[in-house]
């Protein structure tokens, strides 16, 4: 199977600062490897290994594209001028155009991000391919793509046709920092830059009317002598009826 792994396609929300008026300061944050990217990469290798295939890397935006190259991917493509967008369908359209640019592809593997939960599914919709997301892993058995997931207290194995998109959600924080040898090898591996113009996409976002902090009651916080604060909290929890 020819497998494309999509990585570093979003900014990390922990890089954002929400100001007191609710506006967001991204503080020049770049696209980073999401918490699900290592699990997606592992699944991409598993699918390729089970089918004598290859794994191609695809990233967008201004992050360091060598992330996948230093983790065993032989070739990667980067749409470096892709902006960070609110519209998940617009991000997906960029990715879909890049996947088409890579020619015949059997499986696209992508981290099933919590923050941008619409990108993996809109990517499948844009390509017109079947998809499963929220998966724990995927592999190839007897030349057929199969995926594992947890649904309603059961561990399921699902067979799906190709071409397909699979979204992997990390079960644990598994990223492994590459060693010096891998970092050096990554520099020699080909990284092809693509532009939005080359791909023929011109993404835009809906108009933003601004941000505001959600209406939420701040925590009642007790500070002071431990014995006193402990008594205050216990009293508060009793009045809530939870003690």
């Amino acid at each position, binding site marked *: 199977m020819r497998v494309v792994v999509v990585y570093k396609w979003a900014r990390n929300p922990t890089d954002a600062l*929400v100001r007191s008026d609710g*506006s967001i300061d991204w503080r020049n944050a770049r696209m980073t490897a999401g918490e699900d990217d290592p699990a997606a990469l592992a699944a991409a290798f598993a699918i390729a290994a089970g089918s004598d295939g290859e794994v191609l890397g695809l990233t967008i935006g201004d992050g360091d594209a060598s992330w996948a190259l230093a983790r065993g991917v032989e070739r990667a493509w980067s749409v470096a001028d892709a902006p960070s967008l*609110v519209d998940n369908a617009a991000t997906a359209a960029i990715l879909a155009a890049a996947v088409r640019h890579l020619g015949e592809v059997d499986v696209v593997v992508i981290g099933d991000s919590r923050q941008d939960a619409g990108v993996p599914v809109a990517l499948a919709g844009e390509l017109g391919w079947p998809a499963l997301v929220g998966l724990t892993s995927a592999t190839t058995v007897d030349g057929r793509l*199969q995926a594992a997931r947890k649904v309603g207290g059961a561990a399921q194995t699902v*067979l799906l046709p190709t071409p397909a998109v699979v979204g992997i959600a990390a079960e644990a924080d598994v990223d492994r920092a590459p060693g010096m040898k891998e970092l050096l090898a990554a520099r020699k591996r080909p990284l092809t830059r693509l532009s939005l113009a080359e791909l023929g996409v011109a993404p835009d976002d*809906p108009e933003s009317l601004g941000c505001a902090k959600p209406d939420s009651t701040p925590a009642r916080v007790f500070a002071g002598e431990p014995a006193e604060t402990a008594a205050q909290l216990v009293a508060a929890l*009793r009045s809530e009826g939870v*003690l």
Partner: protein
Amino acid sequence: MNTDCWLLVTADGWGGAFRIARALPGRLTAVVIGPRLLAEQVAAAGPDEVRWTDPGPVPAEAWGAALAGAAADAQPGVVLSTTDPAARVLLGAVAGRMHARLVPAAVALAVEDDRLLVRRAAVGGETIETLRCTGPVAVTYGGDDVAAASGAAAPVTPVELAAAPLAVIASEPLAVASGLEDADRVVSFGRGVRARDDVSLVQGLAAALGAELACSMPIADDLGWLDKSRYVGRSGNQISPALYLAVGIGGAPQHMEGVRGARVVAAVNNDPEARIFRTADYGIVGDLYDVVPELTKAVRNLPSKELEQ
């Protein structure tokens, strides 16, 4: 502005999404791919119609392409789903086919000056952005789940659609749960606990409260101080106790997602700026090594019947 809405439902937990969809003036069609009972429950909430497809043992995702075709014919202005994986796949299929925008984590929808306004949770819900959209829009619902209202029951129309060849080839029950899922009270700890030996401190508090003991992901995953079945968070346990008491936990969004259903969240942290105080109901700012023994003592001093569950 076309505000006819399709709500895509494949599993429980659709009440919040239904509420924001019903707030739109257009016709609300619930598209249910799931058991008949689910279709009937959705119908009782009072959409204008329910289109129901029985998937049998086949994953609901198999109907993505067929549903996209049906949506292209019906041309709803708004398509909505929960974050449930299957419902999201259907949403993506429809959005791709209709060339709709897809806004994640919407918490409210409204129409103003003939345009659709989408309020969406950004930066893990720390702020709410208002977007003004033209053309068809797909959204995932990102607010709290609420019990479905009951309305004038809608008719359920069975719809036969073609399915892609997806199949469940194996299904095994997951290992026995840790007891966290049904617990009324949960005491949880994070990296604020400095050494493995100190876990007993938190354990003592949990015992006094008659609570289950849980932890954040690094405690189970990196340190192995508790079994992996006991960590709370996005990829671990998602629990709904009456009381969740977090000790020495910073409150990263991945962690807090695991306790969205908790009724009361209390936190002990030595950093007054800790993220957890933004979502907790109650907090104590202080060193957990001082506060936890005092809390344990205060709980033990309660009349014993208070802690009967």
